[in-house]
């Protein structure tokens, strides 16, 4: 009889632990999610932890930092004089060919890194693409098809070698008049990475930042699961082409479908080649997976501008960089390191 009592007591204890554990687990891990419209997109930050006040504080600080970077790098805000003046990028562009401008340390750092990637990609990636973007009318109310002559003329202004950086004085000078920077391909990634640094400093161990599809995860989900990040099908917005499993990584996609303009019935995507001045058609979408959101942002644009085989080859060459490409023939190409991280749909 005593033996059975022991069995009952063991079963009881087991059930109490199971139920108790379930309650504690659910009560301990909270999710705090906040959204804000920033950098021309919707940014959401989800943080996970036991202290809701800390999650809220850390998220607010992360958003404040993203807002600061957004203001410093904004390029299309002439209608609002106060915002216009806050932007270092506007000041740099305005003073092109005139004088050097003292900028925020983060803007300086961003430009320094962007110049490095310009060299690495032999000019395929170039943030001095501003005049070409303006000519096409991206970000403006009206668009028109530029002539070859107009393109040729503005392309002369595109060259990152003409960004003169002075590290000691923290100044930036665009050496040719009418040159202009467009940080559309770098600022969002940089801001996301700064936000993650803030979350980490506040002791957050698990978080997800989604800046309009630029994804950065911190740690594991709920501290014990892999984050699942879907890659959108470039030709069917209601489907996915793959699902990534990520930990402490970023996944950023450049696609020909998301932002485009229609001129005379023809669709032109917003990723313009600094070599030709025209949108490229080799790929439908390029997703880059790496440790930080800034590198992922820069390289997704750079690889998108390359022929797909060449893009995979470059990603394989670079350490810690993985790429998932849907090329113009809707074929999927990926780097070898990605095979274990992705489920192709």
């Amino acid at each position: 009889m005593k033996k059975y009592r022991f069995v009952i007591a063991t079963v009881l204890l087991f059930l109490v632990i199971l139920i108790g554990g379930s309650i504690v687990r659910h009560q301990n891990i909270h999710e705090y999610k906040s959204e804000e419209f920033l950098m021309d997109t919707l940014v959401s930050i989800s943080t996970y932890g036991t202290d809701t006040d800390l999650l809220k504080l850390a998220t607010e600080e992360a958003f404040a930092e993203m807002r600061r970077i957004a203001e410093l790098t904004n390029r299309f805000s002439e209608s609002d004089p106060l915002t216009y003046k806050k932007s270092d990028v506007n000041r740099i562009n305005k003073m092109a060919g005139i004088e050097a401008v003292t900028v925020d340390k983060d803007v300086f750092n961003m430009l320094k890194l962007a110049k490095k990637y310009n060299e690495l990609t032999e000019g395929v990636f170039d943030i001095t693409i501003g005049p070409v973007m303006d000519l096409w009318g991206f970000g403006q109310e009206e668009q028109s098809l530029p002539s070859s002559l107009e393109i040729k003329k503005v392309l002369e202004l595109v060259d990152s070698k003409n960004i003169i950086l002075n590290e000691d004085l923290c100044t930036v000078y665009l050496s040719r008049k009418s040159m202009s920077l467009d940080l559309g391909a770098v600022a969002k990634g940089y801001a996301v990475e700064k936000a993650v640094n803030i979350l980490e400093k506040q002791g957050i161990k698990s978080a997800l930042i989604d800046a309009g599809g630029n994804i950065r995860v911190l740690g594991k989900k709920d501290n014990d699961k892999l984050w699942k990040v879907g890659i959108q099908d470039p030709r069917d917005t209601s489907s996915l082409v793959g699902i990534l499993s990520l930990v402490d990584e970023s996944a950023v996609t450049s696609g020909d479908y998301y932002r485009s303009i229609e001129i005379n019935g023809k669709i032109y995507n917003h990723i313009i080649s600094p070599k030709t001045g025209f949108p490229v058609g080799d790929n439908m979408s390029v997703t880059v997976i790496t440790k930080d959101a800034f590198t992922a942002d820069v390289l997704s644009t750079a690889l998108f501008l390359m022929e797909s085989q060449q893009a995979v080859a470059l990603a394989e060459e670079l350490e810690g960089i993985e790429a998932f490409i849907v090329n113009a023939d809707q074929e999927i190409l990926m780097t070898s390191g990605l095979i274990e991280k992705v489920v192709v749909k």
Partner: protein
Amino acid sequence: MTKADKRLLIIIFIVSFFAYALIQLYFNHALSEGQVIVKSRGEIVKYIHLQNDENVQRLEIEGKVGLLIIEIKDGMVRMVSSNCPEKICIKQGWIKNPGQSIVCVPNEVVVYIDNDNEELPDAITR
């Protein structure tokens, strides 16, 4: 083991099972799949159940800079009208899966299909 012991054991099992199920339900506050949520300027303005109905349902949403029209049909949702300059929200077309969203930045309007299923991705890169 006496009859009473056996009965007690069965009761403990049944009570534990229901307690566990209730806890899971309560803490996961499982919303049914396919719930469309519309937010405008940070506030939830509409909850709509996404039904497989052939009839087109149209909804008007007041955005930051104007009126938007959302269309729901066959378990899918899309933006059909917006006064935003680039019309990215309209060009996106239909969405149907939980976790997907349509965003109109100038109007600060977000339409998303609720994601409360643990099997679904946590985010989508696009």
